[in-house]
C-alpha cells in the first residue's frame, strides 16, 4: 500500500498512490495510515485523487482512520473521483467528513 506523506505547516497531506481501496487492501490501508499518523499534525488531509474505486470495506477503513486520530485532530478528504464520491454520498458519510473539491491545498501550489 503506497501512501506518501507531505507536511505543510500544521497540516499533513497523505496521498494514496493506489487505484483501489477495496476489501483486499483495507486492512493494509488502515495499518499503513496508523504508522504514518504518529506525526502530531492537527489536520490530516487524505488525498484520494488517484483512487478510482473504493468499496464499503475501503469506506470503513477511512472511517477507522478518522477514529484513530482521536478527538483533538481532524481528517479531511480531497480529490475524490466520481466513483469514490458516490460511495460517500450513498452512505451519507459525506456529511461526516469535510470534503474538499480539488486536490489538497499543499499540492495545488505545486501543480
Amino acid at each position, binding site marked *: 500500500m503506497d501512501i506518501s506523506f507531505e507536511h505543510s505547516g500544521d497540516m499533513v497531506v497523505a496521498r494514496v498512490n493506489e487505484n*483501489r481501496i*477495496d*476489501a*483486499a487492501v483495507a486492512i493494509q490501508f488502515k495499518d499503513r495510515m496508523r504508522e504514518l499518523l504518529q506525526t502530531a499534525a492537527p489536520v490530516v488531509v487524505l488525498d484520494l485523487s488517484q483512487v478510482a*474505486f473504493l*468499496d*464499503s*470495506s475501503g*469506506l*470503513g*477503513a477511512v*472511517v*477507522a482512520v*478518522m*477514529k484513530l486520530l482521536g478527538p483533538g485532530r481532524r481528517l479531511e478528504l480531497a480529490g475524490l473521483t466520481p*466513483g469514490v464520491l*458516490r*460511495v460517500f454520498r*450513498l*452512505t*451519507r*458519510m459525506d*456529511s*461526516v467528513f469535510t470534503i474538499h473539491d480539488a486536490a489538497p491545498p499543499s499540492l495545488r501550489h505545486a501543480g
Partner: protein
Amino acid sequence: MPARTGAQPACPRRLRLVFPADPLAVRQALHDLHEGLRDCPVSPQCRATMELVLAEVLNNVVEHAYADRGGEIEICVQRSGGGLVCCVADSGRPMPHGALPPGDLPGTDAADLPEGGFGWHLIRALSRDLDYRREGTRNLLRFHLPAM
C-alpha cells in the same frame, strides 16, 4: 498487454466466471468482467455500478457466507436492454433468517461512527429486482442494473 493484440472488438453474449472466495480473486473477477464488457454497448456508468455492487455482494460472500474459510463463487453477467442482469451463486451458509438483510444505513453519530454495515445499503440503492433464493446448499442472488 500482449493479449488482444490484433483483437477484433467482440461483445460476448454472456460472461461467466468461477473463482475462489478470496479478496484477490474477487478483485481479478471484477477486473475481468469490466474488461469483458469493454466492447459491449453498456455505458461506463453502468459498468462502474456493476463493479461496485458486485464488489459488495462478493465481499459479503467471502466474509459472511464462507466466513473467510474459502469456497467457490460463480458469477454470470448478461446484457439486458442497455443494462445488465447479474447472478451470483455460492455454497456458503444461508442468509440470516433466510432472507436478504434490510440494508438500513448505520447512524452517523459522531461519537460512534460505523466502520461497516454499508454493504447491503449500497447493493439495494444501486440495483433493481433483487432476488435471493436458497437452492439446496447454494445461495442464488440475482439482480438487474439499469442502463445509465
